[in-house]
């Protein structure tokens, strides 16, 4: 399974990089989201994956009786997911706004706005 995940995150990165090399702003945003997902999987994998042992202490115990999944990567990823949502939400609204102003999704149309104003 680890090897599969390694291939998967490589593909996520490759797709993300490919998307941010495109001209479309929406694709750029999707690319950034893909890179984020790839990174989450990377952290998750490197923390060591364990099946069926969530880091939650039993009802009537004070400490773990058994092995448990590493909680630190999970805490990090949780933060990352939430923050990347903040980024995505803001970027989506910004895209909408740019589209309303320039009437285009093409990054090249944003290159020289000052000149167009003159």
């Amino acid at each position, binding site marked *: 399974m*680890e*090897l*599969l995940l390694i*291939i*998967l*995150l*490589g*593909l996520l*990165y*490759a*797709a993300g*990089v*490919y998307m941010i*090399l*495109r*001209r*479309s702003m*929406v694709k750029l945003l999707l690319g950034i*989201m*893909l890179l984020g997902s790839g990174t*989450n999987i*990377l952290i*998750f994998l*490197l*923390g060591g*994956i*364990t*099946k*069926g042992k*969530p*880091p939650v*202490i*039993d009802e009537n115990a004070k*400490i*773990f009786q058994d092995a*448990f*999944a*590493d*909680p*630190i990567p*999970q*805490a990090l*990823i*949780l933060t990352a*997911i*939430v*923050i*990347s*949502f*903040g980024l*995505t*939400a*803001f970027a989506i*609204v910004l895209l*909408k706004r740019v589209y*309303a*102003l320039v*009437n285009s999704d*093409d990054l090249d149309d944003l*290159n020289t706005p000052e000149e167009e104003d003159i």
Partner: protein
Amino acid sequence: MLLAVLSGLIISLLIIPFGKLLTTKWSFLLTLLPASLFLYFMSYVPAISAGSSFLQHIHWIPSLGVDFDFRLDGLSLLFALLITGIGTAIFFYARTYLKGYIFFDRFFGYLCLFMSAMLGVVLSDNILLLFVFWELTSISSFFLIGFNNDNADSRKSALTALSVTGLGGFFLLAGLILLGNIAGTYTISELIDARELILNNELYPLILGFLFMGAFTKSAQFPFHFWLPGAMKAPTPVSAYLHSATMVKAGIYLLARFSPILGGTDYWNYTLMAVGGFTMLFASIHSLFRIDLKGILAYSTISALGILTFLIGAGTREAIIAASVFILVHALYKATLFLVAGIIDHETGTRDITALGGLRKVLWPLSIAGILAALSSAGLPLTYGFIGKDLIYEATLHTEYQPLGWILTGIAVLTNIGLVAAGFMAGLKPFTGALPEKFANIHLPYKSMWIPPLVLGILGLVFGLLPGAVGQFINHATADAVLGSPSDMQLKIWHEFNLVFILSIATLLAGIIVYFVNKPSALKLQAIERLNAIAPQRIFTRYAHDIMRFSKWYTNLFHNGYLRSYHLKIILFAELLLAYKLWISGPITLDLEKITTPSFYEIGVIVILIGALYIVVTTPSRLTSVVAMSVIGYCICLIFVFYSAPDLAMTQFTIDTLSTVLFVLVLYKLPSFINHTGKAILYRDGIIALSFGVIISLIALRVWSEPISEEIANFYGENAYILAKGKNVVNVILVDFRGIDTMFETVVLSIAALGVYSLIRLRLKSTEKE
């Protein structure tokens, strides 16, 4: 001394808020600054003449060896007096010269800054501190030279001056750092003790070369002389100040200051004598062909600087004393001549000496100043210039390099003949002869303009008549600082009738003959200008031009305005670095036992995910790509569920749903993707992207095969309930152990939310829409 050095800096700062007040009658307050500094330094004269020196030590950055170490000895005092004394005259003069000019306050700000920087150069005892002030003089002189910044020529000259002196500054810094590293100290007085160590180091020639680069660029020695005539675009008070007493003398000061540390070797003596000797003759001949008053003065200044470099190179006791006398002589008469030229320019509107004449009838006090200065520069008996010239001949005749003595004397005589003629052209020619009709109505300017040159001119005469009074001081000034032992040489008005005297008189006569025979004209100037094709200036300009072209090309390559091209370069660079790191970190060993076998539905999830990924990348429809994106999110969510991360799964699920909804709500109106790029570029990007993915996978594999420390995980596991009373460890970490992190994360999200809200609420004005 610290206060004396910094006062100019402080005043120039104060000018920013209070400058506008100065344009009115309060501007005389500014002249108090150089005047009081002059008196302050004068008060040291008796003590310094008696042979003592003063030190002040204030810590600044001790860990780097940079301290406010100031040292006032004879050499520093001579320069400090020149800087403040001539400075007083310049401040008085400029106050009237620039009356009513809109950037009056700015000008004095630069001037104060420049004066401070110069004082700092000559008083620093720490070579790094000296360098700081050295660069400050380059920068402030840039502003002064380019003061008429609406004139393209003026800007260009300022830039040339800055780039030449700045280039020298780089070399100087390198030389100083090498010097400090070898000697283990950055203090000049301690460097003198380390002299043997430095001279025997194999880097000594290199240090010397670097130091010479600094001094030659600053003091306009061939082949770096060309910035100085260009700097004549500055307002005249600036030219007078920079080229008589300060800026260009800084290089001479540097040479004199370092001669007890680095001097006395063949490298030192021959280089300085060759460069100085060539420069003085070359510039002296050049000055005879100029018709612009300031042009003549510029070239005769270069020639004088050549003489000084030459004398310091000769390095004998006579030569050093000659140099120090000549520094003072030259400062006095050159400042006078510049100020006179400035008034002539101001009143008649021209500086062309072929058009000027007979001005003694209308500007009589000025003609006295001009003629006195011309006589001093010609070295007529009874002027201070005469003594200076005598000493130069003494030095060349009695040099240690005997077979060369006659050649050197010959060069000095030729140079001086040129300088005599040039001095007469600048100081005498405008005042003699018939007065042209159009200048008949010229009247004298304000007293504050013609008094400073007159005073300076008369001082030249006074010093000549009473050389003993000045001589005593000069002896100590140089002997102590440069030679390391006191000298007993007396300066006399009258030497016995000997070879030196004959040479002086011959020079004078020849100079007068040249003055009468040589009639400079525009035609001759043109002929000489043709030589510019092979001048160093030309090479320098072409070089600068090529650098500009290269930097333009470089900028266009890396900063072309296309985001994807930036991404491309960043990613390629990252790939190279990471691949290199992977390569040198050796082969990856896989521990097959660590690998778990995936179940059937896990493989299924991953296959779906990869399929969705393919759709996201290839689909032309925006909606499809968003939907596929959400599929990817849900699949990742499932992976989290399988591998014991319920909190992650819940978060991922919520966020993914929200993102998709937002995407669809906001962007549903957008058209589908247009395929902008050609196949070749798509393949290129595809290869770059895939290799990036492969590199990341390999890195992941490499890191994964290393053992993991479980210490921190165990700490959280054991203490989650006991310390924080929570059973879900991930939650406890987020809200308790790392609670402040989470709090700020919330703040970030709130800011994003505010941004989203305000962007949605913001209505477009009709004019904003394209």
